[in-house]
């Protein structure tokens, strides 16, 4: 449904009829049809309609909704067009003199339940009163607010608005207490309840993590998602923006943001797929594919979809790290000191992956990098960043087997932690006996 943005700021509305059609419907029948058409709306919303006698003029009198039948130009700037074409119109609620006024084209042959050669006054009136109450045209089917003439209904005494129309009017005025929709199980209407009960309040729980937690490093997973870097640890994550600032010093609950992940677990690895920007989470022997922040249906799926076998032929049951190397656009998954390469530009929709041939290989091929990393991301000019404990190493774009890479502090450079007065130095991967004064 669509709302005009205007509504009556009262629920007791008056209506009047200022002229009658020249076609064969009697005045009494017009009165009845108009009253029933208004009742369709007041049955489902707390609006009360009271008829006011017309003084016969187009002046101030006559109440809120003034009904008239007119031909061609009729002094409102919206002339009718003869038989067919446009049938009627109404003005949205408001303070203008014309607000709520409802005009029917008197060139139409108005009828009640007539055949295809006539126009049913009741259904057109229900539609127009929808406008007079603040509704715009709806593209939903079924809806009385569709712009096109829909023909007569079987019995106006049994007429009930469709769900789309009820939702629209109740959005503006609320639901009537005794409205059928408020009594689930009554009647045969299979529509869902109008406004589902809101879930119990979930006040924001601030994690009991200390300031040091963020600054201690040892993240379960690190991922570059849409240019922002996410640091996952336990049930929480921190997020740095493109400019390097933290969204918040406080961590966020993973399951409050990434909808569909299980609680009580920790994330092993995450990456954003290049071909379609889906986000892949690895937890234990399962993986999830996310569209934005919501898990897609059909997930989790077993890690065995990826067909990663160790050099001794066993299926891999967890992933340590995952990233897309900007150098070649390929996806790399790491587990237990070995890694596999995937070309995801193929097999877009399929869930079964095949690693490239000649994989796995051992992690020490990435010279100068930690062989058992926490996670890896591509960042900056396409450089690969390896994270381990509270340090990170940068492998320049396309480089592999760099002789020596100086580790830097993750907490200082990424998580806005103060530099400690003194610090121990990490082992240099591949050459643990050599010491480095990193800071």
């Amino acid at each position, binding site marked *: 449904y669509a709302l*005009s943005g205007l509504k009556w700021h009262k629920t007791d509305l008056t209506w009047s009829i200022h002229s009658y059609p020249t076609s064969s419907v009697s005045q009494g029948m017009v009165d009845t049809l108009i009253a029933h058409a208004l009742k369709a709306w007041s049955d489902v919303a707390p609006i009360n309609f009271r008829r006011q006698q017309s003084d016969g003029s187009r002046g101030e009198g006559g109440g809120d909704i003034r009904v008239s039948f007119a031909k061609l130009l009729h002094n409102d700037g*919206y002339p*009718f067009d003869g038989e*067919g*074409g*446009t*049938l*009627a*119109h*109404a003005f949205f609620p408001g303070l203008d003199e014309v607000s709520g006024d409802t005009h029917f084209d008197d060139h*139409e042959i108005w009828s009640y339940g007539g055949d295809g050669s006539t*126009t049913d006054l009741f259904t*057109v009136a229900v*539609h*127009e009163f929808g*406008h007079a109450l603040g509704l*715009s*045209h709806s*593209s939903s*089917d079924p809806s009385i607010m569709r*712009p*096109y*003439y829909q023909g007569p209904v079987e019995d106006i005494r049994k007429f009930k608005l469709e769900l789309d129309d009820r939702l629209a009017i109740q959005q503006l005025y609320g639901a009537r207490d005794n409205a059928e929709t408020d009594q689930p199980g009554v009647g045969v209407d299979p529509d869902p309840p109008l406004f589902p009960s809101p879930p119990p309040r979930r006040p924001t729980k601030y994690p009991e993590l200390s300031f040091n937690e963020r600054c201690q490093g040892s993240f379960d997973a690190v991922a570059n998602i849409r240019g922002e870097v996410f640091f996952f640890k336990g049930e929480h994550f921190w997020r740095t923006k493109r400019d390097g600032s933290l969204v918040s010093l406080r961590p966020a609950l993973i399951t409050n943001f990434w909808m569909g992940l299980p609680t009580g677990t920790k994330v092993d690895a995450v990456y954003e797929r290049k071909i379609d920007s889906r986000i892949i989470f690895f937890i234990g022997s399962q993986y999830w594919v996310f569209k934005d922040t919501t898990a897609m249906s059909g997930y989790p799926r077993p890690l065995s979809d990826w067909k990663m076998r160790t050099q001794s032929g066993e299926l891999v049951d967890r992933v340590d790290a995952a990233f897309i190397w900007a150098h070649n656009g390929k996806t790399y998954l790491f587990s237990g000191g070995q890694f596999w390469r995937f070309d995801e530009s193929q097999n877009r929709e399929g869930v079964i992956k095949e690693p490239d041939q000649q994989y796995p290989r051992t992690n020490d091929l990435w010279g100068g990098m930690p062989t058992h990393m926490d996670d890896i991301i591509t960042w900056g000019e396409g450089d690969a960043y390896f994270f381990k404990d509270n340090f990170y190493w940068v492998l320049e774009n396309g480089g592999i087997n760099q002789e020596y890479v100086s580790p830097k502090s993750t907490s200082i450079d990424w998580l806005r932690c103060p530099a400690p007065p003194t610090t121990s130095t990490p082992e240099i991967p591949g050459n643990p006996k050599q010491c480095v004064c990193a800071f």
Partner: protein
Amino acid sequence: RASPDPNQYSRAVDWLSRYGYLPPPDPRTSKLQTKEGIEQAIRVMQRFGGIQETGLMDKETLKLMSTPRCSLPDIVGGEDMRRRRRRRKR
């Protein structure tokens, strides 16, 4: 595919303008509608009316355009709002 006759075409443009699918014509600038603009407007109209989206003035579309209806527009102030939003952004 035969192109619609000019009268039919101009009536359809008039119809699309009247019900909010095309911006109203501006006599000061003699603004012409682009072919793509009209095609897009027809698509929106077809989507709104629940018929197949072809962007063409096909039989179904012409039938829907000739169906008696309410004279209020389906898209209220769409083009105006878009223009205003663009201006605000600038």
